[in-house]
């Protein structure tokens, strides 16, 4: 049971990253590919947070009552993930605007049909 408790998050995040990578590699619809990138981002965020997790820990916030700083989980991955989430949204928004322009030019989002330049 302890083993499961240690690795359940890692399992989940690697599964997410793999599903995302699979979508990016195999699917040919651009919006599907962007969904894949989004899944990868979520998976990586989960991975970073899991790396900072302590099973007996508390949230890294001092709230009134005296708390032991030694028991808090690692705050740095949380800060990194806050940054990573916003970066992920930025890339996503830009990708979707590109998808809109691409659709305007070709009337399709199927990357196999878009062969102006060689892939």
């Amino acid at each position, binding site marked *: 049971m302890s083993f*499961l408790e240690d690795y359940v*998050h890692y*399992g989940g995040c690697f599964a997410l990253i793999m599903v995302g990578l699979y979508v990016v590699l195999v699917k040919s*619809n651009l919006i599907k590919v962007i*969904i894949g990138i989004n*899944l990868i981002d979520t998976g990586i*965020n*989960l991975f970073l947070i899991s790396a900072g997790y302590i099973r007996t820990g508390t949230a890294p916030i001092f709230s009134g009552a005296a708390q032991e700083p030694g028991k808090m989980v690692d705050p740095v991955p949380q800060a990194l993930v806050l940054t990573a989430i916003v970066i992920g*949204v930025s890339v996503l928004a830009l990708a979707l605007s590109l998808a*809109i322009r691409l659709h305007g030019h070709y009337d399709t989002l199927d990357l196999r049909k878009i062969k102006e330049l060689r892939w």
Partner: protein
Amino acid sequence: MIVFQLFLVLVMVVAAVAAAAFKDLMNAVIACALVSLMASIIFYLLHAPDVAMAEASIGAGLTTAIFIFAINRTVRQEENEEAD
């Protein structure tokens, strides 16, 4: 507790697979939002309330809205895959 976490992770992974499998992009986006929502609850359980808030508002909320606006301006159905 561990059962709950296991359940959340399972739902998340299933939703991700569903997001990959749906042909209707709108459904795929909703599944994607579900992934983010589950991730946000897991973040909270991992003692990261700040990240949980950010993921819930940005990941599950705004991202979905952005996707839906973009799908409205393009196409909703994924093309059928040819055998390759």
